[in-house]
């Protein structure tokens, strides 16, 4: 048992961050629901173009961009920052300062994303992928991010521990990397600084790095925290986890230009992007090996622990999506699949199968500790997990097969375009069905979050598990 001093410190740390963390985490769930709805509309339009065709603000071009930004800056960013604001006090043993201020930042963030998504639906998108919000909104979001970053770095400076755990490496790096990325890309692209192909290069430098240098480090930092905590065993090789961190830091930044294979950009720049993409196999292998060796002998816990189940699923998806991405970057592969549904399947395996699943796991771990209330229903968690896992599985498999078929047909000049469209149709319908499963998962998740956060008085009962623990104490 933790001694009294630690228990007091823990209570103080949780009290310091409770309100801002809950603001960010609950808001993120609302954006997840809205993002799911927009995704469903966009997906249905791909195989049934007459669906909601009368409303210009719901045309595919707007809805798809609104979906992307709602999940990227609403769900993903708010969930990531909420988890970060909970993890950093735990890792530094320094209480969060200015929680009321950060609650305000959370609400301003919500207002900005609302404005941004509304602007996209109203037709005021910048049309630059991942950066569709108009510049003033983007700049205000950067200020909000800076406020969170300052609060996190303040805790790092005041830390009461000598050792900086690997999760803190990842989280701190995000505080530096993302502002540089976001401001450089927004000002460069929307401030009139860059012209011509430099715009495309900057666009994909940013868009790829949002995944690799924002959501990936936060998800991996969370994995390295939650996994050992749940199974009660340190990670297998600590040194290897740091090798993985520095390999990610060195290689990922260059990888984005593989998106421009065949484009009118310097060939050497694209080659560097491809080489960096292959180099990413190293950090990916370190995470996969470390996760597997840490979990060895503890896999039976996946039957009972919701947090562990989601996090391990996310970690496994990280391996699959990253290896896939490295080979997708190769010129021969890219020439076939780049402008097909294959890329969409890949992106969703990364943002959903990897990142979102780890965030879900973090919610299951964090919320009971923060609210003093357990998850209301194991059945809701089961629905959430299985609809998510099956949904993203079907989504990925359907679009991977459909995308390769689409790419091969598009490359054959003798095949009429309409035939390519017809061949793709069943895969797009499978996409909508899997999207429906994901939406059901999110509704179950939202119900669980509502019960945990807004439920009755704090309980003093055992953790909500998914089944009977095997053996004593497990």
């Amino acid at each position, binding site marked *: 048992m*933790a001694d009294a001093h*630690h228990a007091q*410190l*823990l209570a103080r740390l949780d009290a310091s961050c409770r309100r801002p963390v809950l603001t960010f985490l609950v808001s993120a769930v609302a954006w997840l629901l809205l993002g799911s709805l927009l995704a469903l509309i966009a997906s249905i339009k791909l195989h049934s173009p007459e669906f909601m065709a009368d409303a210009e603000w719901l045309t595919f071009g707007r809805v798809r961009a609104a979906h992307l930004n709602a999940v990227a800056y609403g769900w993903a960013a708010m969930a990531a920052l909420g988890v970060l604001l909970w993890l950093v006090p*735990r*890792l530094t*043993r320094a209480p969060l300062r200015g929680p009321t201020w950060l609650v305000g930042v959370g609400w301003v963030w919500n207002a900005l994303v609302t404005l941004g998504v509304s602007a996209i639906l109203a037709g005021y998108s910048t049309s630059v992928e991942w950066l569709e919000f108009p510049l003033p909104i983007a700049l205000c979001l950067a200020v909000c991010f800076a406020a969170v970053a300052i609060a996190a770095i303040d805790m790092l400076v005041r830390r009461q*521990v000598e*050792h900086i*755990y*690997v*999760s803190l490496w990842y989280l701190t790096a995000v505080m530096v990397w993302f502002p540089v990325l976001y401001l450089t890309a927004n000002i460069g692209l929307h401030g009139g600084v860059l012209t011509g192909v430099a715009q495309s290069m900057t666009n994909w430098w940013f868009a790829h790095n949002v995944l690799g240098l924002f959501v990936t480090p936060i998800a991996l930092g969370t994995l390295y*925290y939650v996994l*050992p*905590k*749940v*199974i*009660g*065993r*340190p*990670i297998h*090789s*600590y*040194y*290897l*986890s740091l*090798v993985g961190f*520095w*390999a990610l830091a*060195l*290689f990922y930044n*260059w990888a984005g230009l593989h998106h421009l294979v065949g484009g009118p950009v310097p060939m*050497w*720049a694209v*080659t*560097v992007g491809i*080489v*960096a993409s292959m*180099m990413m196999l*190293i*950090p990916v*292998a*370190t995470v996969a*090996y470390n996760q597997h060796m840490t979990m060895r002998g503890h896999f039976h816990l996946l039957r*009972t*622990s*919701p*947090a562990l189940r989601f996090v391990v699923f996310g970690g496994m998806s990280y391996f699959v999506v990253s290896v896939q991405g490295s080979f997708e970057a190769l010129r021969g592969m890219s020439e076939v699949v780049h402008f097909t549904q294959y890329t969409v399947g890949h992106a969703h395996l990364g943002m959903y199968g990897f990142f979102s699943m780890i965030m879900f796991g973090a919610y299951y*771990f964090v919320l*009971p*500790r923060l609210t003093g209330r*357990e*998850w209301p229903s194991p059945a809701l968690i089961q629905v959430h997990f299985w609809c998510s896992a099956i949904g993203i599985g079907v989504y990925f498999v359907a679009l991977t097969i459909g995308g390769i078929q689409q790419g091969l047909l598009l490359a054959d000049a003798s095949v009429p375009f309409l035939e390519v469209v017809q061949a793709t149709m069943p895969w797009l319908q499978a996409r909508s069905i899997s999207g429906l499963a994901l939406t059901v998962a999110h509704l179950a998740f939202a119900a669980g979050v509502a019960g945990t956060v807004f439920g009755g008085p704090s309980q003093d009962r*055992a*953790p*909500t*598990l998914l089944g009977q*623990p095997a053996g004593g*104490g*497990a």
Partner: protein
Amino acid sequence: MLYAYLIVTAMAIFASVAAGTFAWSVVAGQFRELDAGARSIFWDEPTDEVHGG
């Protein structure tokens, strides 16, 4: 092209070191001496108890 050679060379050097340490850790099961770092997150909760949530 010079940039490409420089960048890729730097990546290759780092990759060699990283891959080497990775291989070493896999084959020899090394680096356990740094477990103090790995254990540093367990300051607040018991390590022998599995937490459900």
